[in-house]
């Protein structure tokens, strides 16, 4: 059976979602091609329709646009940005981000649930950026979210999977694609996330700040594919040093 990522009834082959806005727009094509991505986020606040450096003009045909609501400080603002994105022809997907902290840029889980309720009713396919909390993930699922996007570590920090154990709980308990957003700093971390069983990984800063941006996009593609394959293959037992003692505790058992 083909291994596909299904989000809101749409199927994707690639499990890599590309962030944008942190590298030059002219590079968009090369990066998308190298990354083999089918879905890319864009900040609607960067859309400059009819003007210079309009991010929408740089997205290649056939890519699924995932407009984000960055800049929204509450559910109502997020809903209005999502509607604007739809009016501009970005489709029904929305990456919901509600942030009211300019220092750490941590998501406001409560407002995110509220925005999900609003947007799902309006027919949006909501992919919700959140701080990994099981109760919140359940509420988002109940509100009709199509995917849950927990952060690995703070946006732009490149610190990797600091929230690994909590993300694993979401993977185990939530019946929706779990996609790690924010914080992935290197391909090995993307691979680690995929091995854990998340359905996809989003990355932006790690690629944008690389010396060779398109090449790093490719490195991420390979790492994500590799992590996915490892997950599907089932990770073998990794023996801890001296884990099997020479005098076993259960050696006394008779058949």
């Amino acid at each position: 059976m083909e291994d596909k990522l299904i989000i809101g009834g749409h199927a994707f082959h690639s499990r890599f979602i590309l962030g944008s806005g942190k590298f030059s727009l002219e590079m968009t094509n090369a990066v998308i091609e190298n990354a083999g991505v089918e879905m890319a986020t864009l900040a609607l606040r960067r859309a400059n329709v009819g003007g210079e450096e309009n991010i929408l003009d740089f997205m290649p045909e056939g890519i699924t646009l995932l407009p984000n609501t960055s800049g929204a400080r509450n559910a109502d603002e997020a809903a209005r940005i999502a509607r604007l994105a739809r009016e501009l022809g970005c489709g029904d997907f929305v990456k919901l981000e509600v942030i009211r902290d300019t220092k750490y840029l941590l998501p406001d889980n409560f407002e995110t649930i509220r925005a999900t309720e609003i947007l799902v009713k309006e027919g949006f396919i909501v992919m919700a950026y959140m701080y990994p909390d099981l109760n919140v993930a359940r509420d988002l699922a109940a509100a009709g979210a199509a995917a849950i996007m927990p952060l690995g570590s703070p946006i732009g920090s490149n610190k990797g999977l600091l929230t690994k154990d909590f993300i694993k709980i979401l993977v185990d308990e939530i019946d929706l694609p779990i996609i790690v957003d924010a914080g992935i700093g290197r391909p090995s971390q993307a691979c680690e996330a995929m091995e854990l069983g998340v359905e996809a990984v989003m990355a932006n800063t790690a690629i944008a700040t690389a010396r060779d941006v398109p090449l790093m996009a490719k490195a991420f593609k390979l790492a994500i594919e590799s992590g996915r394959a490892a997950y599907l293959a089932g990770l073998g037992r990794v023996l801890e040093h001296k884990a099997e003692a020479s005098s076993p505790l259960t050696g006394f058992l008779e058949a």
Partner: protein
Amino acid sequence: MKLRETNHMEYMEGMEVIASDIMDRVLKATKEYDYYKYTSVDVYSVLQKDALTVDDFAALLSPAAEDFLEVMAQKSKQETAKHFGNSLCMFTPLYISNYCENYCVYCGFNCQNKIKRGKLSFAEIEHEMEVIAATGLREILLLTGESRKSDVEYIGEAVRLATKYFTNIGIEIYPLNTDEYAYLHECGADFVSVYQETYNPDKYEELHLRGPKRIFPYRFYAQERAILGGMRGVAFGSLLGLDDFRKDAFAAGLHAMLLQQKYPQAEISFSFPRLRPFINNADNNPNDVHEPQLLQVMLAYRLFMTYAGITISTRERAGFRDKVAGMVATKLSAGVKVSVGGHDEVSKGDEQFEISDPRTVSEVKQMLKARGLQTVYSDYIRV
């Protein structure tokens, strides 16, 4: 006319007083800030950290940190890239009026001087905006002199006109009460810049002899009133070189940090105007801010507040601006005219200061591109 007739720490009639202790905290910490106590060992250990405390910030502003400029620059470049990628926002200021009712002794524009004053009519403002918008810019900063001769209704109307052409509208005007900020926010403004000039109240008193600007606390709390009035963000700064620049830089940073802590949704940004030291006077005065000191201050801010916007003005030369873009600065102006109007209309008032980088929007964009940086025209949608 009697000079220095009022107590600069007492509010004048009509000036709103808000409940806040930020000023007392900033003034106390600034008074206690002894930058000579930091050694190169302190600076070195700060540079190993990833999140800086106020005391770490103080160390980076100290004379001991001057020897670490290169390391600070390398680190700052990484932090800037992590938070802002390779993007630089571009904007231009539009001076719509230069009436001034204050007497700041360091400024040739003060009310004691006979200079050409004027304000633009709404038709003139709109025409200027059309000309600016045609360069591709979507962000504008509207400036007036500090006089109620350009009253809040007039500024509000200018802001409304700006919404036809721009997505991002900042104002750099005299300090207002909360309800007035709320009114301008409703008209379409989002960002408020107010510079304290110096955070030393005694020095402030000596330099600001007349007019509402003389009132230190009312100016200090302008950003907080702006946020309470619903503004999205506020800019801070001091005029480096007026007094002890290390203390002033420390105070402005702490001011912003405490405000962001109290209002976590507030966007914070900084500007670094400086008084140029007299050329023949180089190295004589520890208050003097030459390029290395200016850069040290900017880098200390970036490392302390990695998320903050940093604007670099056209008062600095092109060679300096080009290099700090992407290393520390995230925003720059281009196509600047510092007279009233003057983008197309014949200027209606004299220029307050000279600019050192007269390049147009497209020239600056080309420069950024050549340096591997991208120009961002729109970075905000108002919903």
